[in-house]
């Protein structure tokens, strides 16, 4: 069905406009998801742009009214893994660069607790990190996260709970040291911050 009638074309153009509006609204979320996957702002934006273009090109296969956020997240995730496979030799270097970047973002205005959490997050296995981000920050239900990660709902649930335990262990137990401070301080900082936030409300 390559031939399109004029009526179909008009319909498609209107659909494109709507699709584009929705896609543009999702860009901030795609950037955030990409940032947590790559851990590096520059490669995250490259990834988010690729995913946005892929979604645009595939708009014909998108069913209007279905969960577009989940659909685009799935495209982004697939893109991330296929980039990784293609440049497997690069992965180790990227990981090291990402860790350096994460450590280097020592913005004095950013609360210590956030830096520590970013570091701890980077230490999680990728499959746990993505599950935790989707459910714990992205606002997805377990079922939706399972669809995005193309795995069983139970698998997502166990990855999320393992990720939560691991994060707490890293932040609590001083699995790493930084600036001579043990990570035990990180949990204390996070708790103090959370207390301040909730009392401010």
């Amino acid at each position, binding site marked *: 069905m390559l031939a399109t009638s004029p009526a179909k074309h008009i319909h498609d153009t209107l659909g494109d406009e709507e699709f584009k509006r929705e896609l543009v609204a999702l860009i901030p979320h795609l950037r*955030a998801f990409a940032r947590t996957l790559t851990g590096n702002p520059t490669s995250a934006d490259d990834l988010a742009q690729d995913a946005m273009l892929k979604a645009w090109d595939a708009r014909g296969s998108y069913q209007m009214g279905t969960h577009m956020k989940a659909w685009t997240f799935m495209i982004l995730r697939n893109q991330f893994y296929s980039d990784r496979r293609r440049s497997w030799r690069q992965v180790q270097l990227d990981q090291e660069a990402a860790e350096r970047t994460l450590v280097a973002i020592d913005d004095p205005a950013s609360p210590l607790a956030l830096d520590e959490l970013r570091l701890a997050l980077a230490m999680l296995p990728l499959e746990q990190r993505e599950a935790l981000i989707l459910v714990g920050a992205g606002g997805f239900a377990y079922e939706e996260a399972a669809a995005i990660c193309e795995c069983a709902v139970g698998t997502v649930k166990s990855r999320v709970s393992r990720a939560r335990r691991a994060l*707490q262990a890293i932040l609590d137990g001083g699995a790493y040291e930084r600036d001579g401070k043990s990570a035990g301080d990180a949990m204390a900082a996070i708790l103090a911050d959370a207390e301040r936030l909730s009392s401010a409300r």
Partner: protein
Amino acid sequence: MIEQQRTKDYDTISSLADDARMRQQAIGVRLRQLFDDVVNEPVPEEFLDILRDADKRSTEGS
């Protein structure tokens, strides 16, 4: 005496559980903040340029 000891144990267990819950909640709040901080960043112009070009290509191409 035994009854008292038992109550104390229960108290310890439940305060440990509360503590763990509080820690998880605190991490959850922070995690959302980490994500939302990026969501709330202004979108770089480049994104919109790329999409505009792609849109133009598909309109001209058809």
